[in-house]
Each structure stands twice: as structure tokens, then as C-alpha cells.
């Protein structure tokens, strides 16, 4: 269902996994939107006005009214365009609770350990972060088995809430894998997730908006240079 021009705008930056989440959700629902790319290093007036509490992307503007925080945006998109595309969250309250639980876990536990690998100053610190990241992925592998019920995604036959939460980090995960010389989504350690990762990146709603690994590598090098 196409939105009227100007009705839906997304403030964001191309490298941000959080922005990617919002874009995938909008794509899944077939919503047309204007992407307002923020200039790196500068925050626009519109962003500061729309998200005065955190001053961060992404911000979804629907009829000029802002919605902030990536997974809150995803849930909003699911509800506001409930009649379009497939449901992002399941209908059953208990299943919804499980999906929300793993999305929170991904942000609170997995992302810091993955980011920790990149930030580590010593080999010991790096090794510790790697162990934590693998341990978290092992739990997510079990969660995938339970939630997917033998199908392709955490959401079952289609991309769902947890797929978006975790999948958005895949671009950066590849960068960290290359920089650190290791595999995070390892076919031996987490075989289901290794396959899922490829499948997610190849999905129609994702492949056009997932940033290319080379571009992210350049961006990361630029950040490190600062």
C-alpha cells in the first residue's frame, strides 16, 4: 500500500543498523517513504526537533509525527500498516512476548559483545568479547530452532521481529569478522543461524538497503582514523 508523497519520511544514516531495521520493516509492508539521509558528523534541525530526548536516528515521521527507537518503530509500522504485507509480530501474546524477549536480548547482550570485539584494546579483551558473542549466538541458535518451527526465519515463513532485530547487525558483523579474522556466524558453531544470515541478506526487503561490506569497512576505517 503506497503512502502519499511526504506522508512517510525516515530520518537516518546509511551505515546505521538501527536505521536499517526501520527500512526493512517499511519495505516488508510495501510502504513508500522519503529517506532523509543525515550528514555524518552533523545533526539536522529536523532530527533534533523530532527526537529531542536522544537526538539519534532513526526517526520515523508519519504525517509529520515522530516515532523514535528502532524496535518501537518496527512495532509501530506493523500496527499502522496492519492490513499490508505479512505481520511482523505474531498474533499470539505469548509468542509476541518471546519475540520481544529475544529482540531485547540481542540489543542488551549480543550487540555489546560484538561491538566489544571491535573496541578491544588487548588480545585478552578481544578473546573475551568473542567468547561472549559466540555464547550469545548459541542461545540465539536455540531460540531460532524454537521460534522458526522448521521454517526459514525467526518469524516463520517470513521475516519477523527477531529477524529484523538481529539481521540489521549482519553488515557490521561481516566487517568485524574481516577485521578480527574470525567467523561470528560460524557454520560449525551455529549452523542454523549461518544459513539464516545468508537468507536474510538475500531477502527482497533487505538486499537493496543492507549496506555493502566494503563501504562499511571504509566507513569503519574513517571512524578509526578520527
Amino acid at each position, binding site marked *: 500500500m503506497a503512502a502519499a508523497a511526504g506522508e512517510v519520511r525516515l530520518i537516518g544514516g546509511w551505515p546505521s543498523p538501527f536505521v536499517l531495521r526501520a527500512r526493512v520493516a517499511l519495505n516488508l509492508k510495501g510502504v513508500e517513504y522519503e529517506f532523509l539521509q543525515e550528514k555524518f558528523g552533523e545533526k539536522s534541525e529536523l532530527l533534533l526537533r523530532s527526537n529531542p530526548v536522544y537526538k539519534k536516528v532513526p526517526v520515523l515521521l508519519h504525517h509529520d509525527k515522530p516515532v523514535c*527507537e528502532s524496535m518501537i518503530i518496527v*512495532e*509501530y509500522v506493523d500496527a499502522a500498516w496492519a492490513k499490508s504485507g505479512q505481520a511482523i509480530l505474531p498474533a499470539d*501474546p505469548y509468542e509476541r512476548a518471546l519475540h520481544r*524477549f529475544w529482540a531485547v536480548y540481542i540489543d542488551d547482550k549480543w550487540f555489546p559483545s560484538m561491538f566489544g570485539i571491535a573496541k578491544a584494546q588487548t588480545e585478552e579483551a578481544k578473546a573475551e568479547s568473542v567468547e561472549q558473542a559466540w555464547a550469545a549466538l548459541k542461545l540465539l541458535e536455540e531460540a531460532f530452532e524454537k521460534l522458526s518451527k522448521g521454517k526459514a526465519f525467526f518469524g516463520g515463513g517470513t521475516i519477523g521481529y527477531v529477524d529484523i532485530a538481529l539481521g540489521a547487525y549482519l553488515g557490521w558483523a561481516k566487517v568485524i569478522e574481516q577485521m578480527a579474522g574470525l567467523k561470528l556466524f560460524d557454520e560449525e558453531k551455529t549452523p542454523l543461524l549461518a544459513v539464516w544470515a545468508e537468507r536474510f541478506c538475500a531477502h527482497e526487503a533487505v538486499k537493496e538497503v543492507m549496506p555493502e561490506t566494503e563501504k562499511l569497512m571504509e566507513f569503519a576505517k574513517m571512524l578509526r582514523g578520527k
Partner: protein
Amino acid sequence: MAVEVKVFRSWGNPFSYRVELALRLKGVAYEHIEEDLSNKSTLLLDYNPVHKKVPVLLHHGKPIAESLLILEYIEETWQENPILPKDPRERAVARFWCRFLDDKCLVALWMSCWTEGETQQNFMEQAKECLHLLEEELKGKKFFGGDSIGMVDIAASSIAHWLGVLEEVAGISLLDEEKYPNLCKWTEEFLKSDAVMECLPKRANLLALFQTRKQAISSVK
């Protein structure tokens, strides 16, 4: 008749309080199971293997962990006295403030009371900024949820009751009536609710609990 709803909780814990308050607001009967957090039961560890924390809600034998997620589940399962608005955008705003409380505000308030020196000053500055944002959000409203207690109010219950105790134990003042008149009025209105008062831990008991903890920390130095 078997009780369908059980709550694993700890009496002084504001996060498990949220769950009990939501159930009471909706008139849902439940059994609470008291956990000694220094000696957690095998049941709790089985039901919340990832975080090993309270609260955990058990409904028809299925466990749900994380207080804000439990509140969402309660709202979706029992429709009386809704704690979230119907409109998707207003729901998004409510969720935003709930996350703000957990990610920024309550952490700053808590750490202001347990740290000292420059660290404490920094946390107190952050806490005041957070309280200011909540003060603004309350403008013209009786509750964050509007005319009745909603999810944000429930999430903010530690400000209405636990904060005063922490301030006393730490010897600091954060919730200043002159600076935050809306928040102070909100506290009064919140504490008028029967559901709120029914399961609120006694102030004297919380004071004793936090004083003991403060002494334990001080004696380690």
C-alpha cells in the same frame, strides 16, 4: 481451582512490583512466589535461565521474563482497564517512555544514591535531566497514561515510592517539589490508587533494606 497466574517476585524489588500492580489494576487473581535473591530457587532458574532474575510471570505454566515485556503480555491477555492507548502512535510514545525509564532515568536515579564524589555528581546531573523530561511529559496530565494509570505510570512506580527512600539513605535530594511540581503531584495521585497501595512494600521495610545495603557497601571500603 488451580491458580493460573503466578508471579516470581522479591518483595522490595520495584520491577516485580510493576507486574503485581498491572495484574491488580486488571483484576487478575494471582499467586506470588517470594524469591530470596541471594539464594534463587531452581524453579526461577528454570523459568528464566537467560537472566536468572525476577520478575517472572507464569501463565498456564508458560514463563515470561523482563518486566516491561510482562506488562505488554498482561495488556494483550486481559482486556479490562487497558494500560496502553489504542492508537498505534500513542502506543509507540508510551513504549518510548517506558524504555527511557529503564535505559536512562532509573539507572541515573539508582546510581545517584549508591555512588559518591564526582561520580555521584555526574549521575545526579543525569538524573535531574531525566526528571525534567518526565516533568515536561506530564504537563496537563494527571497520569502519564492520561486520566488513568497506564504502562508508563506503572513503569515509573519506583519514582513514586522507592526514590524517596533512596534519597533518605543517600542523604541527597533529587525530586525537588519546586523544580518538579508535576511529578510531585503525580506521585500523590498515583499513591491514591487502591491497586497501587495494596501491594506496595512498606516504606519502613524498604528503608531498613537499603540502609543495611548501604552499610554493607561502606564497610567494604
